């Protein structure tokens, strides 16, 4: 039986030096920034605010809501179903399409106040071993209880979208060891609508 090695990840935040003052600039810039920037702005909240209720899920929605005060567009951006996208490029296209549609309809697109601009960032990710390994389902469950929350984040989010795997790491390993049913249930979980600690509980709940 293959071992599951729990890894963790940490980020170094990079500044792109590019800012947007309104929806048009946000949309146009988002079309051209590196994918690491798309990843950063759609996943940062999950890590920085993992103790909160799940919203707001991405920086774009947060800025449109809190700075531009365009609540309807913010809601559209917030409700993008991130889990259904298998690549960051697709996610980017969806976010841009929502903003383009908004502009096409002639909806409000005013500039923000000076100093309140959206600053594009990205991140460099470092993946580290945690020293925790599991050789079977029972060990996996025990380790899942104690690993750092960043490890769960890494195996659920980073693996799939950023490292371009079809499944998250937990699913892949569960399939490998023949736990197809649990893997499928895990695949049906929307991790974007849950805090990281609750995500840990939900995954534990699936592995009885």
């Amino acid at each position, binding site marked *: 039986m293959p071992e599951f090695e729990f890894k963790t990840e940490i980020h170094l*935040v990079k*500044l792109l030096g590019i800012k947007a003052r309104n929806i048009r600039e946000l949309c146009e810039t988002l079309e051209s920034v590196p994918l690491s920037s798309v990843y950063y702005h759609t996943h940062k909240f999950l890590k*920085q605010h993992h*103790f909160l209720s799940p919203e707001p899920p991405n920086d774009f929605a947060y800025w449109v809501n809190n700075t531009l005060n365009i609540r309807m567009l913010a809601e559209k951006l917030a409700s993008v179903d991130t889990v259904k996208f298998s690549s960051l490029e697709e996610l980017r296209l969806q976010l841009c399409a929502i903003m383009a549609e908004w502009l096409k309809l002639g909806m409000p697109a005013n500039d923000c106040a000076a100093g309140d601009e959206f*600053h594009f960032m990205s991140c460099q990710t*470092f993946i*580290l*071993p945690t020293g925790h390994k599991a050789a079977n389902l029972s060990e996996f469950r025990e380790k899942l209880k104690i*690993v*750092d929350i960043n490890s769960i984040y890494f195996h659920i989010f980073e693996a799939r979208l950023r490292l371009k795997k079809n499944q998250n790491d937990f699913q892949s390993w569960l399939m490998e060891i023949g736990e197809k049913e649990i893997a499928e249930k895990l695949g049906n979980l929307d991790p974007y609508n849950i805090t990281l600690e609750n995500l840990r509980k939900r995954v534990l709940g699936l592995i009885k």
Partner: protein
Amino acid sequence: MIDIKKYEHITGKSAIDELYFLGEKLKGKKVKNINSTAVGGGVAEILTKMGPLMKQVGVDASWDVIKGDQKFFVVTKKIHNALHGKQEPFSAEDFDYFSQTARENAKSMDLSADIMFVHDPQPIMLVEKREELKNKWIWRCHVDITEARDEVYRFLRNYISFYDSCVFSAPSFSKKDITIPQVMICPSIDPLSDKNRELEKEEIDKVFEKFGIDRSRPVITQISRFDYLKDPLGVIKVYKLVKKYNDCQLILAGGGATDDPEGMKVYEEVKESAGNDKDIHILLLPQDDLLINALQRGSDIILQKSLKEGFGLTVSEALWKEKPVIASAVGGIPLQITHKYGGLLTYSIDGTAYYLKQLLNEPAYAAQLAKNGKEHVKNNFLITRHLREYLLLFLSVYNKEDVVYF
């Protein structure tokens, strides 16, 4: 002596293990910090702590200071002011003298460490040695250069481009025309310092008794020096708007005004504005971190109604003490407070008064904001996070990929 292991009960073991792991990856690399002063100021303060912490996780870190005469530091002060947006007259001689002093330093200093970590503009030109030494150079800018004067910024930019990467404290400080990688590393607070450590109840009570402040009624506090930019007069207006509906007391406490003529003027104006209200306590204090700590810990709500801020770390200090904070959305404050999650961001006197009434009337909501705020600081603004990001920064100059596997 600062000890990395003492942070473990706050951050958890895995966070400290990570620091040792990253330190191990930098084994054999010499890192040298360079700035312009060994004592005084925030940069020297953080280097005093960071050096020993880096060594404890296995990094061969050292710290050196450039030398300069008064004429050099007059020029560097002008550069500093101009980076903050102040109109300063520069002559060609100013830049020549700056360059000459930098080159004299470069001749006498050992700049051969594997990673040269240069802080702020004063030593920026030392990077001219990079071509000869073939080592890695990082420039750490601690200054808000959002409104930097073009002449000075252009002069510095010539040298920034020679570095491997540069570091800023907030997103708004970054620049589009900088061609090297720009990294964001926010400043941090030390949870074990006198300003932030846990205090006994008696220590807090003693301070409040000393100033005759009644803790049976809500206490609202702003800690800041007496400076128009901190808007103490605005805070008194806020208090007066709220006092009509909620019985409360206000503390405006800060120091550093005695050697600052404008500070004394502001202090007098604040006193005049407070009038005879016995529930307004205006405290002109000496530098005393424990006293500030006690005032923050004994307060019910903390305000930071600044009109302008650098990073505004006093917000993190208050949040770390699990206090609900209402603060202006300026400088680095929005990075520390997510509105309505970990505190409240405000833009006006009326807005601040409105939120203050809300928190006074809804203590459960206030407590939840405070709890979230503390967690946010724990995850993002402690010195251990700062150290981790410095270690990642050093590793990043050798590892350029978006995703680095160890």
